[in-house]
């Protein structure tokens, strides 16, 4: 509680513990989108490796 009081006493800071929960959906969306895009890039890379590989 003393920490809350200290943080709230600084005029620039408004401590809001609910903010963590509010951002959780963004965390889920963000990580899901990164993995989807990286997955597409991996598949594209495997494809171009196959198409443009050095033929012996």
């Amino acid at each position: 509680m003393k920490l809350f009081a200290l943080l709230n006493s600084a005029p620039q800071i408004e401590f809001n513990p609910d903010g963590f929960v509010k951002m959780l959906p963004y965390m889920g969306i963000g990580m899901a989108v990164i993995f989807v895009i990286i997955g597409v890039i991996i598949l594209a890379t495997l494809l171009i490796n196959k198409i443009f590989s050095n033929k012996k």
Partner: protein
Amino acid sequence: MDILYKNLLEFSWQQGVMILIGLVLIYLAIKKEMEPTLLLPMGFGTILVNIPFSDALAGPIKELYNAGIANELFPLLLFIGIGAMIDFGPLLTNPKLMLFGAAAQFGIFFTLCMARMFFPDLDAASISIIGAADGPTSIAVANTLGSQYVGAITVAAYSYMALVPIIQPPVIKLLTTKKERLIRMPYEQKSVSKLTRIMFPIIITVVVSAIIPQATALIGFLMFGNLIRECGVLDSLSETAQKVLANLVTIFLGISVAFNMTAQQFLKLDTLIIMGLGLLAFIVDTAGGVLFAKFLNLFLKKKINPMIGAAGISAFPMSGRIVHKMGLKEDPQNFLLMHSIGVNVSGQIASVIAGGIILNLFMK
């Protein structure tokens, strides 16, 4: 004769502290060789803007800031140079390594949640991008979102990038067992065709931009630099991009970021919290990559050394080398370099994608 002391009487203790911070940045750059290309110009710029009634602040530094930082131009030009320096070969021989680059961006989103407890949405999003461990992306995103903390974010991003050799090893050791650190990963040399190396930056740009258009400039300029390198017909441009362009823009970038390093903007409790959140971002990034590798090992017959997951942060090539050195320390015959460097370059791509996602989620 009052001309001799009139301005000296205008000094505030806050400006004194900022000049001291500038001197510390210069010391870290020269003596400790911590990211000297950025920390030295930033340190000196900090001194220039904290002299009372400094005409550098109202004049050339402000002009440079408006010319290259406020419109994100300098970070993007620097990306051309960075793209020209990167060899995607190790990644192209084993594209699955990109998954670790993705996992290591977890620190950005975790820090977003933590930062939102102290700052409003746009500032929290700007602060979270410190976890990208990528200076140009951090500056570009923070500027685009209109954050008032660009100075603190830039100092945090570059300082912690330089501190990666200190931050990462304890986190890696905490999250892995000796047995896991001893896992060997033999490297199979595979050749990558020139056509593949040329098509890769083009395809990456199209794929990423089509899904996240807000990342087009970032990924486009990075991949443009890489295409100049790989096309084989622009050797002089590639060399110029890697050396002259990168160095020139770095000088302008470093000194113009100091526009946000005045005492009024920097010396606040906010800055201290931002520095703490930045450190958290790097730690959680490292943990994210390592834990993802351990998770994958639950399903794989041929185990991965989980340390390579830590190389997924964008601090290239430092992070890759750190993981390789840690592997050699555990087992002098365990050469992880090609895997860790492959993961490290994938982190560069993933961090840019993460920056684009943050812009997509928070830009109005």
